[in-house]
């Protein structure tokens, strides 16, 4: 029988589970409050550019209210609760998140453009798990720092990015609350909706007013939070450029700071690697979440003896990647988060061509509306090329070849960043040799882009400082003395 073109039909996730409001206010002191300046901004669905809702734009006055609420909750309620009681609230929040998992997943996909299968299978479960994980730490903090004195910090100002909106919220809020701090969190302006849904969950969980405050807005809102004198801690995930501004702004204050910033992570395939699994690992490293991943394996180094084979396999693999409507359960690469980001990525793709690298993109029809980008491979890339040095934050892979292990180690470390690295080889001794010499906070050996609440995450060098996740993630929210 004829077998040509067995195409998968669209298999759309229902959006019935989500009820959007026309307008969202600020969540301050346990209540929804209109912004003082009465300003709102639109949030859109990047997959079709449709308007989703209007979101309150917090200014300095709102930030001040939120910090005051957090301070009040810290002094009078939260710091007086036992760790065990704090933990119970976190467990309850985790359960409520699980119960609303599908709603959160659909909301995340609508607002941010990521494939439903990723928000459903990765983002939301990991976010729930993060609360479960830190809930259990709340009454065991002293055990984690035996022989040392620990204290909560006070009010934590937290700024999250648009690539993993709810997951990054969980990475920030769960340890902060477990350690006894209260929180003012500002989500990224293009992806506020799950944070606002999370505020509803806090209400439903009966979390005392002011312990978690969500203030929405643009960079100016975040800046007001960073410079607020009554904030004791700043946690930021985002670009290195903004991270540096924040580091500067915190000088001369007692604010404790953790930064999780950009990257240009090297993914290294040695000639003895399990090639097919390595190829799949490369796909996962660079095309996961449209490449909007700070630790994306955006620099691929392949040993010359197998480079032709690996590149052919990558090209073939790209043919079965589905790019399109993020709500389609078969979509592998969804929408680019914003028009601005799409323009940035396209700029780099043109730059790659100009720099003389060879480009490969699969034949694939993109939706006519919305922000989409084809998965893109650049081969014959030089270490000096900007596409091999600068963070693109999109589905664009710069492929280089190497001859010896010494050479690739030097090239991998030859970057201002140091967030993550990947190593693919069948030789155990070599894995430890390489992974201990790679200057990166996370090394994935024979795997890539794995995350877990128990696993500390964070960078070396200009990729930031401090760790999120695991026992090491606690230090970011505690004052530790002898």
């Amino acid at each position, binding site marked *: 029988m004829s077998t040509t073109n067995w195409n998968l039909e669209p298999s759309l996730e229902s959006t019935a589970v989500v009820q959007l409001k026309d307008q969202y206010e600020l969540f301050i002191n346990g209540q929804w409050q209109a912004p003082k300046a009465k300003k709102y901004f639109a949030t859109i669905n990047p997959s079709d550019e449709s308007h989703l809702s209007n979101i309150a734009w917090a200014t300095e006055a709102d930030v001040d209210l939120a910090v005051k609420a957090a301070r009040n909750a810290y002094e009078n309620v939260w710091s007086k609760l036992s760790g065990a009681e704090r933990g119970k609230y976190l467990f309850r929040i985790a359960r409520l998140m699980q119960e609303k998992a599908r709603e959160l997943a659909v909301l995340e996909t609508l607002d941010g453009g990521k494939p439903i299968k990723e928000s459903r299978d990765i983002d939301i479960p990991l976010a729930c*798990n993060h609360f479960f994980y830190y809930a259990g730490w709340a009454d065991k903090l002293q055990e984690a720092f035996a*022989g*040392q004195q620990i204290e909560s910090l006070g009010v934590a100002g937290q700024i999250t990015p648009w690539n993993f909106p709810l997951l990054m919220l969980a990475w920030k809020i769960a340890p902060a609350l477990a350690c006894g701090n209260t929180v003012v969190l500002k989500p990224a302006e293009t992806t506020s909706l799950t944070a606002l849904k999370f505020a509803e969950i806090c209400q439903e969980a009966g979390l005392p007013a002011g312990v978690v405050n969500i203030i929405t807005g643009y960079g100016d809102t975040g800046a007001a939070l960073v410079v607020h004198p009554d904030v004791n801690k700043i946690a930021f995930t985002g670009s*290195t450029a903004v*991270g*540096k501004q924040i*580091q*500067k702004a915190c*000088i*001369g204050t007692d604010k404790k700071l953790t*930064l999780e*910033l950009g990257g240009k992570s090297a993914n290294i395939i040695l000639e003895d690697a399990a090639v097919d699994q390595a190829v799949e690992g490369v796909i996962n490293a660079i095309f996961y979440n449209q490449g909007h991943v700070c630790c994306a394996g955006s620099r691929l180094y392949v040993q010359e003896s197998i480079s032709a084979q690996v590149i052919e396999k990558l090209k073939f693999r790209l043919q079965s990647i589905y790019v399109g409507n993020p709500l389609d359960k078969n979509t592998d690469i969804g929408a680019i988060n914003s028009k601005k980001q799409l323009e940035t990525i396209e700029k780099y793709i043109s730059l790659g061509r100009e720099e003389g690298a060879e480009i490969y993109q699969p034949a694939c029809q993109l939706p006519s509306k919305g922000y989409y980008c084809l998965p893109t491979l650049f081969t014959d890339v030089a270490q000096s090329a900007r596409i091999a040095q600068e963070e693109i934050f999109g589905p664009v892979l710069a492929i280089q070849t190497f001859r010896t292990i010494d050479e690739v180690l030097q090239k991998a470390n030859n970057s*201002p960043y140091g967030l993550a690295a990947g190593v693919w080889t069948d030789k155990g001794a070599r*894995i430890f040799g390489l*992974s*201990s010499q790679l200057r*990166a*906070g*996370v*090394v*994935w*050996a*024979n*795997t890539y882009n*794995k995350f*877990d609440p*128990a*696993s*500390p*995450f*964070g960078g*070396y*060098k*200009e990729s*930031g*400082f401090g*760790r999120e996740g*695991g*026992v*090491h993630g606690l230090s970011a929210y505690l004052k*530790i*003395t*002898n």
Partner: protein
Amino acid sequence: MEILKTYKLYIGGQFTRTESGRSYQIQSASGQAIANACLGSKKDIRNAVQAARKAQASWAAKSAFNRSQIIYRIAEMLETRKGQFIEELVLLGHSNPAAVAEVQSSIDRCIYYAGWADKYQALSSSVNPVSSPHFNFSVPEPMGVIGMVTCQETALIGLISQILPLIVGGNSVVVIANTTKALCAISFAEVLATSDVPGGVVNILTGEVAEMLPTLAGHMDVNALSLAKIEDHLSRNAQEAAVDNLKRCQLYNLDYFDSKNQGLHFITDFQEIKTTWHPIEQIAGGAAGY
């Protein structure tokens, strides 16, 4: 007539004069000239950072046990030069008992940190029980080259308390010593030079903080700063310069005579945490895990 000792810089394991050819006078508490010390320059900082970078990887690659032995050796060499340090401290205006106490505390601190060299890893590492079939562990690694301004109040105990936890952890350091009490810093360099610490792991410069710190803080190949209490504007400018390559900055204003101000976190303040993942094959149908 007494011979006045010329105190040189200690860079890359060598006692060198400043490339700027300048010096300044160190005076006793009573205002008498005791010695001439080098007035370090920006280029000296540059040379010191180069030396520190060159030395760091192989220092970190030494076995932890070996680093412990070497640091214990520092304590032994301090002990043999006890008299010299006491004499210098007295010259700088300390009472004899105070000088004896400071030297003794300094030796004790060396021994304290020597013992940590092969233990802090165990206490700051973790095996993380991830949900997927992966072995996942986190270990501390040295940050690299650390720039330092040492305690300006004390001559010896502050210097040792700041340097040792960093080198115990496999870092190399470029130290701007206490300006007015530089004697002990350079004598300490002589101790280092005779106690198996590889050249370049500790580099000690004397001179004006205001002149050298901006270069050190702005140096793109320095990974972190350890700053004792110094004038506000100097500290602030240094931290601003540090932002360019996102240096980790630790500010200390501690009474180092108090043994509370020694501890594990002074080591981990200058450690990065690296997390490594590797798949675990499932054998005999069993789910493997740690």
